[in-house]
């Protein structure tokens, strides 16, 4: 069940990156559909953070607790920061920033699994 959310996040992150990269290639600026897609990914990330926090509250502990907490804070923030930074851009490079954020979110999810394999990504 936990694995389903994490897997969805990885797929969604890669899909967002692909879509944003396509927009960059087609010389499109930031638009509402792209922001909405980023918003959906952000909600998924917050759900995942909730699941992990619940596990921690239940008494389970990973080996690298500090790193895990760092990832829990950083992952949702990266996407929000990228959305704001990308919105400030009035060219194709706005979506390019979102593409990087989508890739980073996917990579961070995989890393999260390596830190704490209990998560069953």
């Amino acid at each position, binding site marked *: 069940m936990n694995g389903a959310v994490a897997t969805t996040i990885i797929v969604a992150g890669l899909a967002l990156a692909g879509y944003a990269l396509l927009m960059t290639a087609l010389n499109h600026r930031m638009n509402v559909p792209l922001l909405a897609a980023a918003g959906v990914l952000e909600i998924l990330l917050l759900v995942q953070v909730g699941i992990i926090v619940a596990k921690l509250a239940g008494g389970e502990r990973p080996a690298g607790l500090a790193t895990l907490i760092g990832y829990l804070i950083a992952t949702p923030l990266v996407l929000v920061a990228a959305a704001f*930074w990308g919105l400030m851009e009035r060219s194709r490079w706005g979506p390019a920033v979102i593409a990087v954020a989508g890739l980073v979110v996917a990579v961070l999810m995989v890393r999260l699994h390596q830190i704490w394999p209990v998560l069953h990504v």
Partner: protein
Amino acid sequence: MSEPMAPTEPAASQPGSTRTGPGRLLVAIYALFALAATARAGVQIATKFSHAPVAYVLSAFAGAVYILATVTLTIGNPVARRIAVVSCSIELVGVLAVGTWSLADPASFPDATVWSGYGSGYGFVPLVLPVFGLLWLRRWNRRPRTQRTTVTSAEDAGEAAGNGAAHSESGTSGQGAEDVVADDST
């Protein structure tokens, strides 16, 4: 000829700062690495410094350089650009030196740094990033004193080919080189 060329060239990257256009992406990636390297070094130094002190100090140093590059690229005025060139250069030397060192003497690195194996743990982005940073900054630092039309036309050709990074005075793209030759002969 340089007079009519001058206004059209910056139009490619409106409105004109090191943090806009491709610079938007560059600053974002620099900020990401500033965060990654600093946070990683912070956690490692706080929790297990004695395990691999050299690696952790180098990661912290890399983080500081990334922060400096992020801030100066965002500010983008002439002074900041000069500092950015220095920090990107330190970064390039650092990734090459630490990369070589980590391969030649793995015993010194029980744990990896951002720059180990030329940044292989981070998809070699640490190796590529300073190169793009310096190319991007070169464009900006050269502009005020650019009077040579040959260089401008080579740059435009490179831009039209779709890769702003590939242009250089050596005329990497065949088209750019031909333009330079044509301009020189006339």
